[in-house]
């Protein structure tokens, strides 16, 4: 079984990242947007883990990706609270309705 190499990992990460971006940009549902965020973060995580192979210790990227996961969890909790409040105020979670900060 030969080395898979770095490129497939980066490819997977890039696909995840782009998918997440597209998800964030296209979904009007707030929860969908959050899911897009998760995808973007995980795309980045894949990159970190892949690159950690090339560091002296070999664990740096993995540690950072663990941080990112924790961070993502925290972010999700906060974002869901925002989504709930948004729902309470607008009776919907359509992010296009939340345009009060328009300039």
């Amino acid at each position: 079984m030969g080395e898979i190499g770095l490129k497939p990992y980066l490819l997977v990460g890039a696909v995840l990242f782009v998918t997440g971006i597209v998800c964030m940009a296209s979904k009007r549902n707030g929860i969908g947007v959050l899911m897009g965020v998760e995808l973007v973060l995980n795309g980045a995580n894949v990159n970190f883990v892949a690159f950690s192979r090339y560091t002296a210790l070999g664990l740096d990227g993995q540690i950072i990706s663990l941080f990112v996961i924790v961070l993502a969890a925290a972010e999700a909790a906060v974002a869901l609270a925002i989504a709930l409040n948004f729902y309470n105020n607008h009776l919907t979670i359509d992010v296009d309705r939340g345009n009060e900060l328009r300039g």
Partner: protein
Amino acid sequence: MESIGHELGIWLAVAWLLPLLGFFIEIFGGYWGTRLSKTAAHMAVVCIATGFVCSSIAFVRWGAVTDWAALELHAPVSATHFYEEPNAAKHSGHGSSEAATAIKKSFSGQYYQLALFGDLEIAIDYYIDSLTLVMFMMVTLVATCIHIFALGYMSDELTDDHIDHEVHLANGSHMHRPGRYYRFFSYMSLFCFSMLGLVLAGNIFMVFVFWELVGICSYLLIGFYTERHSASTAANKAFIVNRVGDFGFIIGLMIIWTWCGTFQFYEYDSVSQSRPGLFQMVRTADGQLDREGDVVYLQDGQGHRLVNAHNQQPIGIEYMLLVAAGIGIFAGCVGKSAQFPLQTWLPDAMEGPTPVSALVHSATMVAAGVYLAGRFFPIFTPEVLLTIAYVGCITLFVAATIAIVATDIKRVLAYSTISQLGYMMLAIGVAGWVAGLFHLITHAFFKSLMFLCSGSVIIGCHHEQEMTRMGGLWRKMPVTAFTMLVGVIAISGLAIPGVIAFSGYHSKDAIMATSLAFFGLNSSHFLLYFVPLITAGITAFYMFRLWFYTFLGEPRDQELHEHVHEQSWVMTGPLVVLAVFAAFCAVGGEHGYLFRLLADSEPAGIAAGTIGVSGIALPTHKQVGAVHMTAGAYALVVACLGTLMAYAFYGIKILNPEDVKRQFAGVYRFLVQKWQFDKLYDVMFVKPAHIIAGWCVAIDRGIIDAFLHRTVKTGVDVSNWDRRFDEVVIDGLVNSIGNVTFAFGRSLRVLQTGLLRQYVMFIAIGVVGLFLLLFVFFPK
């Protein structure tokens, strides 16, 4: 001897300073009391009454020490006259060394040295002789009576809402103001302090200070009803006219200090090395001027010439300078005693409350001029004395003629005051020193009495002062009428010789005798005898005219008459006291106590007539005595004629004053307009002053103001340009920067759509864009 002088000084200082203390407390009466409180007034009365007691104690002490020598008759009385006393027995005072055995009767000393500038010593000195003591007792007694009278007279001020019926406001109503009872009495206290200080003064500087203080008190009191235009104008007039006299006074003062180097009258008793006083320098011990050619040599008080300490040369003063100094001092007296030509202020001063007229403008302050002329007698040269005599002569005639036609009861008395002051000045001018001051004292009593009576009438008639509306008042106010009659008889000089004679008869007789003796020696100055003689008749005429007009006959104004009533004892009591003094204070005439007391202070040389030089002979006491009976008889006859005339016109009315008025319409108008003096001064001084002031205004407006306006206008123009520059250039710059920034921000606003998904797109595109740029610019 020193200690008694000291003791007298303390008694009189207490009498002098008590009213000042009273003033300082009373002036705050509005703060510590209500306007209904009489406390301040009672305090003023107590202060001045205590002053009288202290003066009396001082007098008794003085008499005890001098063994009443002043009162002893040195010659048998029999048929002789006081004037015929041997001269040698008199005049032990004033440090004349020749009479070693005589008792010292005058005392001088220092209370406090204020300042010493080189040789110039400014101090609070006292000089006490019988004249000082008599003046102290007279002033305090008269002032006490008048204070008590004023308790009643001023009582309409005892209110929080006094209505002044003389002041008409623009809306037709009368002026309302808080009452000023306490303030009246505090001014009166201040006046008493000033007057007593003037009498007690031992140097000219102090005299000048108190001279001005009585002036300011007079100003405050004349202008007491300050809201009345006439009162405030009269106060200003009195003050300004007096400044004219004081100008001369200051010149005299400067001459005296420059040449004599001292202000003090006589050398101190207690200080051994003290310098000789002013009067000791000018006159020798027997009253002569040590004159050689045009120079009068100063004396050292021990019978020698005063020498300059540096070159041992005798010090002299130009004779003409001495004359100028005398005229200067007399000018001050002219102002204060309302003599011709400065007499115009006194009648206007009647705008003050009547007690003020009684105390300040008849009995004491105006007499201060005569007192000062008496004090400064030693420095008056014969030329000055002649001036004084003629000024007095003119004054007494002019004022008496105006009094004939005056119809305001207070104005008649005011002109009579001026006339009587003229008599006093005349007496001093013809070397009748004692006669002049004798008349001063008697006049103070009867004139204050008559003023208080007029005050009582005015109050009784509800502030009506025109005699033409009075008449028949004696039934309604008998006490006032009869005390007034005492004063009228006294001032007219009526008497039954040998039986009864009131004070004015004696004092006027003394003056007439002196002027007759003077006329006998200098026949070219006959006016100095005949004018006063005629005026004696005029005096009797206008005084009885006043009395008949006011108290006798039928009431002219029935309505007014019905409301007339006699006053309470607070006001009639002082009248009775003063009437007693007016009648009997000079009892005995030239043999009486008052006359002999005053004669004791007479400057040396008058008795012997030795002071006269340069063609004017002054009468000796012997010469005066010789003509006394004649002069007295003539004066009495003339006074009786005047009285009969008045009776004929206003008593039984067999002659009608209206006819006379019509017959001499020109004269009448001339007299009613006060000899045109006011008009003359208006043309001579007031109008030119207005014209000059007009020029000054024109210069001010046309040149100074115009220049200032031009400057200011230029400044405003420059500022306007500056403002435009600021607004256009600087503000424009700042604004345009702001505008650009604002427009930029505004244009960026459109990016903030508020759409979340769009932001994500921007971020994504932005990141891609950044990467693209990175690749383009940094390929490897």
